[in-house]
């Protein structure tokens, strides 16, 4: 059981801020700021051959991440374990934990069996090759 250590002598506004902060850290967004942002945040790039997805997921091993590809749909799933399991006194708890899932639909199909994922210093990079049909559409015209 995690308990936040709240000073019983702090005046109410400070305690309220502390509570807001707790809720922010649990739900990933401030109260009244609309839905919590999706986790993890994604950056996506494209070149002629492939799409590249990048996400910062520190503390998670590549083996704990699942990438599913179905046609042009890509889903990234995983679990971020709380580091503080079994601890009694958490003074701050901002790092998100729990299961996460993001889904993206690309404009063209992905070659599912050629998808490559790497994890380095907490940064996940997934390269998703476009299907040959999609890349073949771009015809180069040479002038003589």
């Amino acid at each position, binding site marked *: 059981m995690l308990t936040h250590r709240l000073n019983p002598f702090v005046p109410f506004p400070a305690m309220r801020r502390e509570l807001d902060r707790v809720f922010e850290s649990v739900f990933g967004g401030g109260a009244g700021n609309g839905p919590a942002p999706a986790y993890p945040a994604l950056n996506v790039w494209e070149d002629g051959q492939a799409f590249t997805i990048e996400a910062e997921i520190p503390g*998670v091993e590549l083996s704990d991440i699942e990438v599913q590809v179905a046609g042009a749909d890509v889903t990234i799933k995983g679990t971020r374990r709380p580091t*503080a399991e079994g601890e009694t006194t958490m003074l701050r708890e901002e790092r998100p934990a729990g299961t996460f899932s993001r889904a993206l639909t690309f404009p063209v199909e992905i070659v599912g069996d050629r998808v490559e994922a790497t994890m380095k210093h907490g940064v996940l990079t997934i390269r998703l090759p476009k299907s040959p049909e999609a890349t073949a559409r771009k015809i180069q015209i040479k002038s003589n």
Partner: protein
Amino acid sequence: MNPCAEMQKSETHQPTVERVRSGQVYRPLVDIIERKDELLVIADVPGATPDSIEVNFERGELTLCAVVLPREREGQRALLAEYGVGDFCRTFSVSEEIDAAKITASYVNGVLTLRLPKKDSAKPRKIAVKPA
């Protein structure tokens, strides 16, 4: 009092290493755990390397900074940009008595873990009551 309160003026704090490039500086997300004999600061600093991280503890102020170089995507077109990449920096004021010489830091999978052992004088101790 929270023994590891955030510095109010963290925005104005400058790392001891002079910045020679411009760019965004982000506040790393942290978990702070207090144990009987130590404080544990766990910070998310993805994209850093062990030698790009600087940890300082001076006069009760703990500062952690990490330089994160932009990840170049040459010849690629951005389709979605939900987060920015840049350095991390954050300062805490630690009121607990810390044995500064015994602070250790490790960096695994983008997570920086700092162990701040309490000084013996700050550790809780049991006083045995002897019968008269």
